[in-house]
Structure formats: structure tokens, C-alpha cells
């Protein structure tokens, strides 16, 4: 699958050949930092001074590289497809190789950063449990009522919430049975076939 680069994009990346190989390394580093931490105008200014190129050009170059890397990582394009996609920019072989290396080295990290942007439901974090026996209450003395009290820790968008829940022994066994069935589903032929065919 080839990446289609717009005219603006190509213009932004156009600064790379003029900048030289050291600059490409520097711009690559800036692009990755931008992905990890967000835009850093001071770093771009420092790079512009060091490489003797205009700040705007550096900025565009970094943005162009960022977009190139994120799109390639998102689509998980192969080496050959990547090379073919940037071929249209008309860069030197050496520059193409550096870009390819930059892509391959950082693909996994970029994918994990992109993975955090997806919509999410509260997700499981952990479970604490405790066995309780109720012996008496205001309405009834001399009871023996076993119960399992649980604290379910969930993550939602970096907030951790804890819910306190309770269940009786019979329901607990039912829960275990149902969830074990759920786990077993991934191992059935049906699911295995789909996973195989989707790759």
C-alpha cells in the first residue's frame, strides 16, 4: 500500500536534501520528540541556529517528517512500499536510506503512542477481594451469611476508579463459570480461523 503525499507535504520535506545528512538526523530526532511530547518551538529554534537554516523551514521539515512517520506507522506499510512512496520526492539514495531506517527503528514506538489515542471504555486494572460473614444486623440476630466483598480497580483515561462490590458464594461460582467460558472462546476453531484469515 503506497502513501500518497500531498503537494504541501512534499514542499515541506523538500528542505531535507538541502540540509545535509546531519540535519536529517537532527530533524528526525525533533520529529520523534514532537510525537512523544508535543511541539517544541525552542528546540526548533536551536536547531535552526545550529544548522544555519530558517526556523520556518525547520518547523515545516519537522512537521513533514512527523506526518510521514505517523502515516507510515499507522498503516504499517512494508519497507518496499515506504521506499516507493518516498521515491516520488526525488531524494538521493542516501537520504532515502536514512528515512527508511528512521521509519523502521521507530515504527513500534509510534504505533504504541497512536494506540493510546483510540476511544476507550474503562478498562480493568486489578481486583482485591475479601471473605466476609455477616453475623447479625439490626433486623436479625444470629445470622451466618457469607459474602465476598471485592474492590474492582478500573482505569478510565488515566483516572483510576475503585468500585466496591459484593456477591454471594453461589453467584461467585456462576461468575467464574461464565468468565471461564469467555476465555475458552478464543481457543475455539471459529475464532482461530478468523484470526488466521485476518492477518
Amino acid at each position: 500500500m503506497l502513501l500518497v503525499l500531498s503537494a504541501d507535504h512534499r514542499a515541506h520535506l523538500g528542505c531535507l536534501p538541502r540540509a545535509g545528512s546531519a540535519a536529517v538526523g537532527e530533524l528526525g530526532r525533533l520529529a520523534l520528540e514532537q510525537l512523544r511530547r508535543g511541539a517544541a518551538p525552542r528546540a526548533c529554534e536551536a536547531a535552526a541556529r545550529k544548522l544555519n537554516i530558517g526556523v520556518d523551514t525547520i518547523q515545516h521539515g519537522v512537521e513533514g517528517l512527523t506526518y510521514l512517520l505517523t502515516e507510515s506507522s499507522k498503516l504499517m506499510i512494508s519497507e518496499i512500499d515506504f521506499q516507493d512512496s518516498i521515491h516520488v520526492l526525488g531524494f538521493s539514495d542516501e537520504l532515502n536510506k536514512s528515512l527508511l531506517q528512521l521509519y523502521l527503528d521507530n515504527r513500534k514506538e509510534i504505533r504504541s503512542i497512536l494506540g493510546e489515542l483510540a476511544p476507550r471504555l474503562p478498562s480493568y486494572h486489578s481486583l482485591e477481594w475479601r471473605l466476609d460473614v455477616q453475623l447479625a444486623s439490626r433486623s436479625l440476630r444470629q445470622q451466618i451469611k457469607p459474602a465476598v466483598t471485592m474492590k474492582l480497580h478500573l482505569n478510565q483515561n488515566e483516572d483510576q476508579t475503585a468500585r466496591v462490590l459484593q456477591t454471594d458464594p453461589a453467584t461467585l461460582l456462576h461468575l467464574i463459570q461464565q468468565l471461564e467460558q469467555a476465555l475458552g472462546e478464543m481457543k475455539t476453531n471459529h475464532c482461530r480461523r478468523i484470526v488466521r484469515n485476518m492477518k
Partner: protein
Amino acid sequence: ILDDPDLKDIDPTVLKHCHAAAATCILEAGKQKADISAISTCLEDCKLDKERIEQFCTEYQKNKDALEILLGSIGRSPLHITDVSWRLEYQIKNNQLHKTYQPSYLVTLNVESSDSGSHPDVSFSCTMEQLQDLVGKLKDAAKSLERATQM
């Protein structure tokens, strides 16, 4: 009681008092898990004759278990799990990332609250490993329950 034809000859106030007194007596007996002799003694002190005491005790015995269950269910407790539903899905892509190829589970715990009638179900997603962790912990709880009952 006020509409019962057998009782229409009795003064309504007296009826209400009798009803309240009988209810209180039954509830107290149920709460303390009193046995027949304790109830009989109590009623004797109230100057009821033998026949009435016997009738009362027989009726009480018949409904004792239901009464205990009812009394035991009164009271507050944390949200009580009644059931669980799950869904297994296989993620292919999202708008930020293609070719994700990850199975994931969506689990919903059906929850009942003793106070209000509302059912605030708890839903969460988890990976296969996380679900295994959850099931492992639930099984530990069940095992310790078993051990406790054998003590």
C-alpha cells in the same frame, strides 16, 4: 384487616392495636430467633389462654423461615453482583491505527442495589491476560470460601 367481614364487629382502633401488637411480637421473636418456649412464656405473661398461645405458635412456626429470610434481607450492603455478561471482539483498526489485530473482552457486571431500584451496571474492557488475572483472583476467593466451610 379493616375490610375483613369477620372482624367488622370490632372497634377499628382496637383492631389496629391488636394488629400492631401482634406484628411487633412476631418481628421481635423473629429478630431474636426465639424458640417456642420463649414465645409461650412471653404470651403467658400477657395473659393469653393456652389455646390461643398454641394457635399463635403453630402459625409462627409455619412462617418462621420466610420471616427470617425477609428480616435478613433488610439492611444496607455494597452493590450486589447478580450476573455477568461478556462480549468477545477482535479489533481490526481504528481511525488512529490500522491493523491492530487485538482480541478484547467487554465484561458487564449486572448489579443490584438494596436501596434504590436502579441498576447501575459496571462495564469494563480487558485483554485476555487481564481476564485471566480476574478469573484467577475469583477462583482464589472461591477456594478460600471452600476452605472456610471445611473448618
